[in-house]
């Protein structure tokens, strides 16, 4: 059996393009993000490419660690975030994509634990709570896609003739609600945030510095592109333009919420995410039977 022949060219292309382009696209998006955020706060803000400059700078720093093993976990985290995106953009089984994403995050959490630092410890615990809050809706979204398109492959979902959003608006709302967690934005920036002045210092990433911190930043860029891709599936090739506009609107909303809210406690985060998932996600899923 020739395996190579089984992989169509565009799937391979999707994977390669993701690996090369995602960090730049992600960096530009976060750059614009910082610019808009600054304007909302009455500041000028850094240049759009500042996130990239930051990362380059991190890689020039001295390598300071608490334990030798911590970099291994973070490296694994980066690799598996990339694997997640590669699987996604190569059009493979969406459940495998989700499980790879979970695996990546477990590596990140283990990296934080391995330092034995009190701040990182609490950050790691909170990250796990966030994972627990996020997981149900993303699995439900995958099942929703299957119900509509009868395939788990992202490629098949993308090519569906009807935009899934029409039949699963509830699940989309649920996804947008928990999207804030993955963007590490307020009010859900419990485990770590882009700012170092929170009550946990920098939580999860307290003990990461130099290239290690750089790797988590790169992973964040990859993940951002992957997540936007996931949201785009709700529109697919049936409504690509509307999809792009929707993504821009959603991201802008996230910025607005980020700047207008304060951090909440983990209890409210877990509860609200699960309830939103049940009300919008599960009910929507059940309703798919009757459509």
């Amino acid at each position: 059996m020739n395996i190579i022949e089984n992989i169509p060219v565009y799937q391979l292309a999707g994977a390669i393009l993701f690996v090369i382009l995602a960090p730049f696209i992600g960096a530009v998006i976060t750059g614009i993000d910082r610019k808009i955020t600054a304007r909302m706060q009455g500041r000028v803000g850094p240049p759009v490419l500042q996130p990239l400059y930051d990362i380059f700078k991190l890689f020039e720093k001295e390598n300071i660690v608490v334990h030798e093993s911590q970099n291994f976990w973070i490296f694994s985290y980066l690799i598996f975030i990339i694997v997640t995106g590669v699987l996604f953009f190569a059009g493979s089984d969406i459940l495998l994509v989700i499980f790879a994403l979970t695996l990546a995050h477990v590596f990140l959490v283990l990296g934080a634990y391995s330092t034995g630092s009190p701040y990182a410890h609490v950050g790691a615990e909170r990250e796990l709570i966030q994972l627990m809050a996020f997981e149900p809706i993303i699995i439900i979204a995958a099942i929703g896609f299957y119900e509509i398109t009868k395939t788990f492959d992202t490629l098949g979902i993308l090519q569906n003739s009807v935009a899934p959003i029409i039949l699963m608006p509830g699940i989309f709302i649920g996804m947008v609600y928990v999207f804030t967690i993955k963007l590490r934005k307020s009010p859900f920036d419990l485990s770590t945030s882009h700012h170092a002045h929170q009550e946990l210092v920098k939580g999860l990433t307290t003990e990461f510095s130099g290239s290690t911190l750089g790797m988590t930043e790169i992973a964040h860029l990859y993940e951002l592109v992957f997540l936007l891709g996931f949201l785009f599936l709700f529109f697919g090739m049936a409504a690509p333009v509307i999809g792009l506009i929707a993504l821009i609107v959603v991201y802008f909303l996230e910025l607005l919420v980020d700047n207008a809210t304060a951090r909440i406690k983990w209890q409210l985060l877990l509860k609200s995410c699960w309830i939103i998932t049940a009300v919008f996600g599960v009910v929507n899923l059940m309703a798919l039977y009757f459509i």
Partner: protein
Amino acid sequence: MDILIFLILFPLIAALLMLVLPNGGLRDSIVKISAVVTAVASLYLFVTTYGNGLSFYTIGSELTGTLMIAIEVAIALFIIGISVKFKHYLIAVLVAIQTAAILYAENFAVSHAALSQELFLDEFSVIMALIIGIIGSLICVYAVGYMKSYQDHHKEIKDRRPLFFFLMFLFLSAMFGIVFSNHIVWLFLFWEITTLCSFLLIGYARDEIAWKNAFWALLLNTLGGVAFAFSIMFILLFSGNAEYIYLNNLIAAGPAVALIPAALIGFAGLTKSAQMPFSSWLVGAMIAPTPVSALLHSSTMVKAGVYVIVRFAPVFEGNLIGIMISLVGAFTFLFASAIAISQSNAKKVLAYSTIANLGLVVACAGIGTQEAVWAAILLIIFHAVAKSLLFLSVGSVEHKKHSRDIEDMSGLIATMPKIATMMLIGIAGMFLAPFGMLISKWATIHAFVNALPPFGMLLVAIIAYGSGITVFFWAKWMGKLIEVRTKSEPLKKEASGQEMTAIYALGGLTVITCLFFPLISSELIEPYLGEVYGTASHLLSLNNMIIMIMMLVLIVLLPLSLLHFGKGRTIKQQYMCARPTGADMSFSGSMGIKKDLEMSNYYLEEYFGEEKIAKAGNLLTIIIIAILFILAAMILSGMVMFI
């Protein structure tokens, strides 16, 4: 067929030998030899019957039938006697009812069926036999070292090791009996022996609490036994054909004939596999020495419960009885996982995760489609290896650290690196992609989406939440293991030689089953499904298989990066907000007082407290089981054929 008889009889003979051998080197050697022989024999069974498909065997003697009845009565008398002695009259009554039902049914009907195919063998039995033979034997080897230090640690408990090893091997013998029996009365006899063995093993310490938990296990399992006995009575007296006493005929007859017996045996399976509301007995069984827990959880007892449910899966396909069984499993998965979050006792976390995983197996079996059964069998395999590894590791850590609390395993990777690494492998096997359990979970979701609407979606929603919960409690345990705060030297000897042998072997097995699961699937599970469902289809697409294996290889290779990351790093102490006072990470508080640093995991008891969740879970599953029986009664009274 000789090998089938050998697998049932050899552990039995070994068991009897254990009863008379005194403690010491001779018995230890014989345990090891017997374990090796059993393991090799189960491998031999696999090799020699490879590709044979379904085959039948007969003993062909009237004498065996009589002997079986004699043993049944003897077991019943023993249980009645001991229950009366300890004033557990309800158990005595239940056992009396159950025995009366069996004797009555056998007396009136069994003579009509010719003894021709009492034993059978197919790929599913082979898989089960390998689990029992290899994992069960490894646990026996482990027990040699463990029980020695157990008795040294617990001077107050009388040394009953001859009885202990007798029961361990008897258990294995009975388990082989269960998976090879085609004659349902035989199956029932072996079923009862496992109930008896687990009762005596749980009560090993013979103190008040041990007896209490042992009798509780006995009571719940006897409830299942009564249902089982009624099922046999129903088959013999109402089905109109004595041939249905054979499992293969019964299952092939389909729901029209087999649904009521399947519902009753399914109920018995739920009790034995510790599904809610019966789960409390397995949690209580934690009182027993660790090898017992490992045996109960991975290769015997609870596996017998799910085995029968998976056997009857084709009967459950597409009807409401099956859906009810499935719902019990799914809710058990959700609630037991949730309880595991609030537990810091390692053995309890393992217990609840077993209950949860078996719930997933039951949920799949209740759906009963080909794809669902495929997932169920994979779950059984992966759970057996990873869970036995975890139990044995926890047992050995407990003897060194004198605690089974996860909080006390902080930084275990530094003090007991070998066992901690094995534990990490076991935990990864339990929930991480692309390892074993996750492949099964992936298959489970695939199977659920196609299940009877709208229940399929409900099951999927349950699994979506349960999946997040599982990640939480496993990952925080892994975190504890690798959380190294200060430099410390590893122990010279982490556990006895026997213990380390078993732990390493199971660690290796976990990795091997993960690597070779496509082979297990194509060579054993798919042929079995082909026989039962009449069609052979590949359930795992080539592309997905390649992806999973590539991910696995990646994970195996990643530790090599340590060679790079270990070099040229400046090592600093943890950031302590500029207030550290020493290398032990204590810090100075207000008024110049030195404070010690304490780090502990979240247990979220407010939301996932054992009592609250168990109450809700038990109530819900009791309602579902009540509906199950109402449905069964409706079918029985002829109101509906089958739903």
